[in-house]
């Protein structure tokens, strides 16, 4: 059983960096067992394809525009995923949607796919998350811990 936690986003585009920041926060807080890989995927797009090989469960963390109040978090599964990413603006035109589509066409899409997203407040250029998105971080991290628990993985906190 192999699990990939993939944070996505552009580090210099304020809230777009949410996925990457969430991965950093997870790594700082918990010890992860060998079968769980934490990866800051940045804006690599299709270059992330090889990382899907042998992965059974994929958890994506990303800022997604769902038209909600900034800082609202949501969980997406199944058919909701491509729809959510369909309009996602990405610095690289080949974005998450294409990554998932190609993985599916290649037969490399993990069996289970869960996305935890946060509604961004700003995707302007800047190195800091907005206050709303930053305050959503602890909740999302707790949700990720719960998600992993559901997959039979108990995270040990780093003291």
């Amino acid at each position: 059983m192999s699990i990939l936690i993939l944070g996505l986003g552009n580090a210099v585009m304020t809230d777009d960096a949410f996925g990457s920041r969430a991965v950093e926060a997870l790594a700082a807080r918990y010890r992860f067992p060998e079968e769980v890989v934490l990866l800051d995927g940045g804006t690599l797009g299709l270059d992330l394809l090889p990382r899907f090989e042998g992965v059974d469960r994929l958890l994506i963390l990303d800022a997604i525009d769902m038209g909600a109040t900034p800082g609202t978090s949501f969980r997406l599964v199944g058919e909701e995923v491509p729809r959510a990413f369909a309009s996602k603006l990405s610095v690289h035109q080949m974005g998450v949607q294409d990554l998932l589509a190609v993985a599916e066409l290649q037969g490399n899409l993990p069996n289970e796919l869960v996305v935890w997203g946060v509604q961004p407040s700003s995707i302007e250029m800047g190195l800091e998350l907005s206050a709303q998105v930053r305050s959503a971080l602890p909740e999302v991290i707790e949700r990720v811990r719960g998600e992993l628990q559901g997959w039979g993985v108990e995270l040990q906190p780093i003291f």
Partner: protein
Amino acid sequence: MSKKIAVDPVTRIEGHLRIEAQIEGGRIVDAWSSSTAFRGIETILKGRDPRDAHHFTQRFCGVCTTVHSMASIRCVEDALGIQIPDNARLIRNLIMGIQNVQDHVIHFYHLHALDWVDIVSALSADPVQTAKLAQSISDWPKNSPTYFKQVQDRVKAFAGTGRLGPFQNAYWGHKAYRLPPEANLMAVAHYLEALEWQKDIIKVHAILGSKNPHPQTFLVGGMSIPVDPDSQNAINADKIAHMRKLLRSARAFVEQVYIPDLLAVASFYKEWAGIGGGVGNFLTYGDFPMDNAGGTDSFYFPRGVIMAKDLSRVLPMDQEKITEYVTRSWYTYSGGDDKGLHPYDGETSHRYTGPKPPYEFLDTEGKYSWVKAPRYDGAPMEVGPLARMVIGYAAGHQEIQETVNFVLNKLGVGPEALFSTLGRTAARGIETLLLAQKNELWLNQLADNMGRGILEVHNGYRWDPSTWPREARGFGYHEAPRGALGHWVRIERGAIANFQAVVPSTWNAGPRDAAGQMGPYEASLVGTPVADPEQPLEILRTIHSFDPCLACAVHVLDGKGTEIVRVKVL
């Protein structure tokens, strides 16, 4: 009836290129190429240690990182008079060689093929006939009816969910698509196979560069990856064997899949050998030194210039004759915008005078692009695989001549067909084949050196800034996948006083100059038939044949991301 249309963005990966075209009577009569993003890495480099430049210049782009490392390192080595050891030459050739091979295959299948291949038509293909077709042009072992059926089923299931993923932004069913369904299915299958293949073969970069993208082992004076048969952490016999396997697989795919597909697809579109010629002037810096004496004569791809499609005369390339104009670009020069500046004296002072977004059209009478207009001896020049192949061909390079003639004969066309959209796409395939074969030679030479105890990878001469002259300047060349890439550095008291890059897409995608001369993209579009201005597939065919990528051609990303391909008709 005259119509003006805009295609924005044009590229399939990075989207900062915009084409506006005037169409009359079903043909393009005028065209403008614009990049809509500004960058400013040259400004960031000023005052820094020249030995660090390559770490910054790699960030010109998120895709072609390696090429800027190469050119930056070389301009500093040129400025300081450093010669690199033979192993460093071979490692660099291998990194550049596999970069070209991977990049060109990705370009053909993932960025360009869908201009010629109709994926929707592939759904109605007969897998048995597809296998027959594929077997008639190649002995690639996968070409079976079962295989093509599997691929078709997967694409059908996928399309059945109402999604086309990376294929959605295209003009499916356009009448300019001409392949039979079976050829379309074959190409779609190989599109998916190439995706698998490319991620494997680029492991050569991970081995030699310790990382990809953004390889870390380039160093002024050579490379920082050790060659040592007795070390687990160096290039040793195991690593050589691993790379040999990867290079073989790279060559096999190029020989048995890419080239046969290219020839098969091209045979249905021969009229494109008469469309998209462009400026007809070509420039190469040359690359892939075959010895480490430091001369340009040993370059596998020769250095040179061809003017006005004259294959009877290859002129020497003198980088002193290069100037960049900003007359029609959103920059300003201290000495006036109508004069060209050599890159050593280049200036990057932006002054945007274009419309406030969102806008319908640019003001193409004034300044209209973030790309400067480079000129050689005052003339616009095309760079890239076609430039490399025609200059090699005209210079009497035996392997280039043989391979070019093989392709021309297969298609039943003469050398004049090279100066076209189809010629550009074919030239890319030809040089991929040549480099896929050469890579194995370079690896063997590296293994020989190692066997003979020659392990040096770095020349520390002049590493220490206290040994540098007070002032120095250097030109760094590289034949990147997209063409001639030049970096120019001026070093004063150990720090960068000025740095300028003229990248391949600056040459090709640049706007008009002070004399009003069009850039290569613009010139290549004039005369191109456009069947349906709302679906300007023909524009994409020609512009994609240049392999456009504008992240690096413009000098800070606007950060607004991109939109889906937008076509506006006035």
